């Protein structure tokens, strides 16, 4: 029989020790409800019942619970991703890694394009206001030249889908060409580019570690919206641009949890012409469209417009009049502040949560002249709010 060497024994008992320490730690450690690192709810202890036992859902629930609450989960998650990155992987978990610290979400072929066209059109057909549609491509489209070589997508698909939707929707809808604006913003304003993204040049329109756009990208789309709507845009230097965080690690970062990729800065704008009342509809009324509490948390993008609300009403008391309704996803949250200098009232609908249909509200408020639909292409296809958009 083969003899067991002392080092073989050591390695076995080392690992046995690790196993026992981890399982003991599991029972001792406090359980978490939410993972800041992964930005999602963690599973709790499953409820026991006879049916759950026999259909296997209790065992399944227990497995999820144990995995989600495993001690050191956040650190553990990162090791395999780091190993894969070092091994030369150019895509992990749906994130392209072209090199350096650049990350961008991949784009999956959409399946709900027809539905999107119908729903956008219905919102326009059901209201008398002027309706604007602004579809914002995500980083994989605007930065497609940075995609890793031989990647399975060329980054053009989002633009093709935008074109299909823009051609298909009701002629009542005026289209805002956000893509053009973003592309221009990226190339033209090199100075700003460098100022706001010293860590990753040419990467200022979007966050690296998150799927959202930066305020500078939103500003570019705002300029484009003004042109389409015949408004006179406010120049950049009429706003003060403030860096509010330099430790933002967003949703893309969470998919890998690899500290190699560092963090993003968050910049936000304020304006001396603002005199705001922001009513979140749940009794919470403030004078700022930002909630700095979120900057301390992992999900720092929620700083803009206080994360998710089904309905928000913002009044700029410094304005005489003008009302707009915005039907949108979270991309709009850092875009909307630019509207305050054009409208006294901004009504904001998140139809994932707002039930009853914005068109009813819009028709009841005759002061609303404009309606802006703003969604990003990265998540449009999976957005559960499209069904209740009108």
């Amino acid at each position, binding site marked *: 029989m*083969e003899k*067991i*060497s*002392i*080092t*073989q*024994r*050591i*390695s*076995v008992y*080392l*690992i*046995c020790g*690790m*196993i*026992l320490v*981890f*399982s003991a730690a*599991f029972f001792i450690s406090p359980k978490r409800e939410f993972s800041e690192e992964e930005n999602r709810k963690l599973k709790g202890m499953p409820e026991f019942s006879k049916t759950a*036992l*026999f*259909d*296997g859902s209790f*065992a399944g629930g*227990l*497995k*999820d619970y*144990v*995995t989600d609450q*495993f001690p050191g*989960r956040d650190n*553990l*998650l*990162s*090791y*395999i*991703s780091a*190993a894969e990155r070092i*091994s*030369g*992987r*150019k*895509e992990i978990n749906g994130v392209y890694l072209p090199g350096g610290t650049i990350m961008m979400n991949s784009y999956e072929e959409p399946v709900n394009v027809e539905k999107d066209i119908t729903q956008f059109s219905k919102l326009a057909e059901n209201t008398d206001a002027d309706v604007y549609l602004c579809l914002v491509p995500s980083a994989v489209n605007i930065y497609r030249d940075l995609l*890793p*070589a*031989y*990647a*399975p997508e060329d980054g053009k698909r989002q633009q093709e889908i935008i074109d299909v939707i823009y051609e298909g929707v009701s002629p009542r809808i005026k289209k805002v060409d956000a893509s053009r604006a973003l592309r221009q913003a990226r190339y033209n304003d090199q100075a700003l580019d460098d100022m706001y993204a010293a860590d990753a040049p040419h990467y200022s329109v979007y966050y690296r570690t998150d799927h959202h756009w930066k305020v500078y990208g939103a500003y570019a789309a705002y300029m484009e919206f003004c042109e389409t709507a015949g408004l006179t845009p406010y120049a950049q230097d009429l706003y003060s641009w403030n860096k509010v965080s330099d430790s933002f690690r967003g949703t893309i970062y969470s998919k890998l949890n690899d500290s190699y990729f560092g963090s993003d800065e968050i910049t936000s704008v304020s304006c001396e012409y603002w005199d705001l009342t922001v009513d979140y509809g749940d009794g919470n009324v403030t004078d700022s469209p930002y909630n700095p509490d979120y900057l301390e948390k992992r999900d720092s993008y929620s700083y803009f417009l206080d994360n998710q609300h089904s309905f928000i009403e913002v009044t700029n008391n410094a304005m005489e009049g003008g009302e707009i309704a915005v039907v949108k996803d979270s991309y709009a949250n850092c875009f909307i502040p630019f509207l305050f200098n054009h409208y006294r009232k901004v009504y904001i609908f998140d139809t994932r949560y707002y039930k009853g249909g914005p068109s009813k509200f819009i028709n009841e408020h005759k002061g609303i002249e404009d309606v802006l639909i703003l969604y990003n292409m990265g998540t449009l296809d999976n957005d559960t709010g499209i069904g209740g958009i009108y």
Partner: protein
Amino acid sequence: MVFSSITFLFFFLPAFLILYYLVPGRAKNVVLLVFSLIFYAWGEPKYIFLMMFSSMVDYLDGLALNALHAHPKMRKLPLAAALIINLGLLAYFKYADFAVGIWNSLTPWDRELPGVALPIGISFYTFQTVSYSIDVYKERIKPEKNYFDYLTYVCMFPQLIAGPIVRFSTVQQELKDRKVCESGFVKGFRRFLTGLFRKVLIADQCGALWEGIRTAGNISAVTAWLGILAFTLQLYFDFSAYSDMAIGLGEMLGFHFPENFLYPLSATSITDFWRKWHISLSSWFRDYVYIPLGGNRAGTLKHLRNMFAVWFLTGLWHGASWNFVLWGLYHGVLLTLEKYVWGKGLKKLPKLLQHLYAIVIVVVGFGIFTFDDLGELALYFPKLICAAGNPFLGPELIWHAGNYLPFLLAAFILSFPVYPAFKEKLGKADVHRRNLAEILGVLATVALFVLALSSMVRDSYSPFLYFRF
């Protein structure tokens, strides 16, 4: 429960082992039985009674056969009853939907599919219980008198779900009396870790590569070949890793299970491949189907019939779908050709060509194996020979191969017996080098364990491929 899961590794296994080592002698079987039932019930609470019923049938059958020792003619009856019940249950639970589907496609009288869910491990434990009944009938083994010991054999958790198919004769002695010792634990645990690393760090990676290629739209012929090669590596590392873990766990408990894989991808012919791949299954078919039918000693025609029967059944055993049958017959045809046509010529070729010949046939075979949907198979295979309007070589190869290169290389190297060769060489090296290698070995084991753990936490669930069969 899956061996490569947090639940098994950090909770079930420590709790079980501590209890198992604490209780004295015969009580160890009770601990093993109770934990095995929990292990099985974890995923399939309903079917636990099916398994207990199935083993009860063969247990009683063994007793009846023994009692009828003096009446050879009457002994056929209990054997037939046991075979009909066991194989009938397997047929119903595994093939009912398939059979009704065939019926519906051949006749105008359509029937609704019964929609039976496959009980985990039924293909494996049915083969174990059937071999038990036949062995008792042939008086190769004495029947087990204690039902609980017999049940412990059938549902012993290390090998319950995906083999190896352990015969009763292998463990009969150890069921009653086995040596449980510290060095067995250390050896077994190391074997278990090997399996864990092979499953989590290689099989799953190869699986991700295959998934990427399978779902990519336009691929060149070379990429299509890389795809089915990746699947072959995934299947081999997945399945042999399970056997490693099963054998390792067995060793920790004092059992010695047979080896199931001997570097099959390094085979030099298909005949050689089947001596090295899923050995416990191919030897089962040899001993309980092929030889009883007369093997190759009853003339060429009968030999051909026997080959057809064995390989049809081998294919069908893997799943209720035509592609498995096709895969089985494909191997049957090649084995026959090797025996009657080019087997001898093949041996005269350079070794490298023999390896190449075998691996190409094996990879094409698993290409058939992987598509339950023959329509998908018909779409994929033309790509291998540029018959789908696809180029021979395309840039997407760099994407797929480049992303997984280190893992692919590791998988390729580990498909050959390099580790035993390395150990042998190390044995002859001087003491300093040996010590250095030993210390590096400890570090590497711990590092691999941390990576495997990280991967398990990230992809919380990645079941073994052979669970489906």
